[in-house]
């Protein structure tokens, strides 16, 4: 299981939990599991999210690996100028 940190305004979809646990081995599996286990997150994930895995921000790389002890932070989609 991987612990995934959820930002504050999404926690209404996780019964207030700041961290949820999902079964996943990469970026995409984390997203799939979040949508499956917490359907209220689907709208935001559809709009776009990034993910910080062990301190590195991944914008959209589905197969970025996630280990059971990885620090995984869900983030809104990155943008820049």
């Amino acid at each position, binding site marked *: 299981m991987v612990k995934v940190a959820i930002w504050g305004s999404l926690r209404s979809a996780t019964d207030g939990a700041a961290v949820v646990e999902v079964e996943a081995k990469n970026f995409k599996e984390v997203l799939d599991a979040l949508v499956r286990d917490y359907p209220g997150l689907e709208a935001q994930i559809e709009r776009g999210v990034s993910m910080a895995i062990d301190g*590195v921000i991944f*914008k959209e790389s589905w197969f970025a690996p996630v280990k059971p002890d990885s620090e995984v932070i869900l983030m809104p989609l*990155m943008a*820049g100028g």
Partner: protein
Amino acid sequence: MALDQDQKRDFKIIGTRPLRPDGIDKVTGRAQYGADQSAPGMLWAKMLRSPHAHAKILSIDTSAADALPGVKAIITAADFGDMRKGEAMNVRDHIIAKDKALYDGHGVAAVAATSETVAKAALKLIKVDYEVLPHVTEIQAAMDPAAPVVNAGFVEENAPKGYSENVISAYDFGHGDLKAGFAKADKIVSRTLKTAATHQGYIEPHACLASLGADGRGELWCCTQGQFYIRELCASILGIEESQLRVTASEIGGGFGGKTTAFIEPVALALSRKAGHPVKMVLDREEVFKASGPTVSSEIDVKIGMTKDGRITAGEAELRYQGGAFPNMTNWLGAQCAFAAYDLEAVRANAINVLTNRPKQAAYRAPGAPMAIYAVEAVVDELCIEFGLDPLDVRLKNAARKGTKASYGPTFDDIGLVATLEAAKAHPHYNTPLGENQGRGLSCGFWFNFGGNTSVSMNINFDGTVSVTEGNPDIGGSRASISMMAAEELGIPYEKVRTIVADTNSIGQNDVTDGSRVTFAVGLATIKAARGAIKEMCKRAAQTWGIDEDAVVWEDGHAKPAGPNAGGFEPLSLAKIARKSPNTGGPISGHHEVNAEGAGVSFGVHLVDVEVDKETGFTKVLRYTVFQDAGKAIHPDYVEGQMQGGAVQGIGWALNEEYIYGEDGKLQNAGFLDYRVPVASDLPKIDTVILEIPNPGHPYGVRGVGETSIVPPLAAISNAVSHCIGVRMDELPMSPPRILKAIKNAGD
């Protein structure tokens, strides 16, 4: 964490300052910008724009304009597809109004004619019947439950309740126990700070030349930060296939984020398709101000607690950003950046997005970060004054460092904030005495940086020169940096490499030039492409010598036997291998395609001295020094240029620049006479100190440098002015009337 284990440290070309490859073209006028292309049979396009901030469009009668000799096509929103969701829909609806004009200057109809004169005359003949609606251009007014609804249908599931439908989203980040954190503080300061919307102020207005046939095949030449994204937007909006639209990016006269999206290109293509001729479209400056994408304006509530020895115990911010009549990403980026420079046990930042009757905001260097960090850094400065503490020492005491849990979630790896602060403290600028009516301010800054989709192709030419083809418009010297990285890796002189920016049909997909990504991501792909070419050249040498491929190494631009056992062969240079490549298997090239991740975050510290004339309210910037972590400065001139340019734009943002809307909802200052950007005579020399804390995610340690430098100036200058006049300034720009008012209010 080392993402790229093959980091190279012993450089020969990286870190030098060769001549820029585009310099002669730009100073002789040979460089081709957006408006510099023409075509046989070309028509000119002009846009009719709404004179109202908010109005229902009851009817558009183009019959008189159609009848004007020389008019070849007229389009309205009805000429575009019926796409109902997504960013392309928002871009389309921002360019040309459907049933409502949403801001002063919103496009309503466009004409293509045989000359600009005819096109302008035709605009006057188009009759639009409007029903003027109540408008709202300011944040508080737009949030009021009774406010007119600007653009319905964008409210997200987590939008805060109790406001109008213009409040569409909230993004909330942080960790720790705020209540407990504030309870530990010896002093808590709460303050609301405001920033005005500003424009990127690029010198070159948007311009393009479009040709689209009835068969759906087209060519587009335009000034943009991303030809592939323009292609994607135009293809979506016009209902054509991306492969059939070739987009070529011109030289670019500044972008700063403002040319990351489309404002005219779909209109020119639609006119061309209807008229059967190429169409040229060039915005004038008033149109650029009114109908392109300035940044957001903001109101930010900040609350910070500190102990008397300077430890920050908790930080909280509520950000309210308006970015015009459409949703934007800037608000959540601001909330994530607000406290990023600090190592905090308890922190929270919440951002609310508010729609108003203004143009759709666009990115502007580190979008969302400058205003958020301005607000936090102003309150930290205020607390330093309260306790009589050195502001640099306080920042060092609380600085984020390796192992810090960032306010937006992740744990930082190797970052350069402490080194940057220490460099500032040791610099002579920090200890130079100030004169009368002078003040000194400082601020930290932060930006994420990112990588993204990148494709590079490298050809080893038969004559021993090298051609690099990439797909990101060069807005900050990237062609030079990429050539340098190719030359470094191949072991050949910089002058033997030429890098070009290709059109959308000549290279693989590349993301927009944004996020400070190009030197990082395209550089990474170039190095890997060079390594691919080197592998092939070693193979050719091995074949030539009749030895095993593994027995060949590449050193200083030559293939060499790996050791005495491999044989006593004379090394083969890149040029010799290239010349014989037809005999050894054909052309040699290298490619690399990647969605580059691992861009390292970047921190900067700015130090500024100002002098305020307390009779006029005029602020003169006396001295300015930028300290920034570049990871590795590939071409230090360009890195310094980015640091200086960000500082200058930030000075304008802090002191003068603002979108001013009248009570009628119309923009009052749509021109450079009334919207004042800093000019050379306003500025001191901007000194720079480059720090190099290598990014483990890049072979040479590169971090993006293009955006961080615009983040600290707002707070640094505000803090300096506040020290100087003895009054805390809490609104930007600090124009002379605003400073005089603050001084007067403090004296009353």
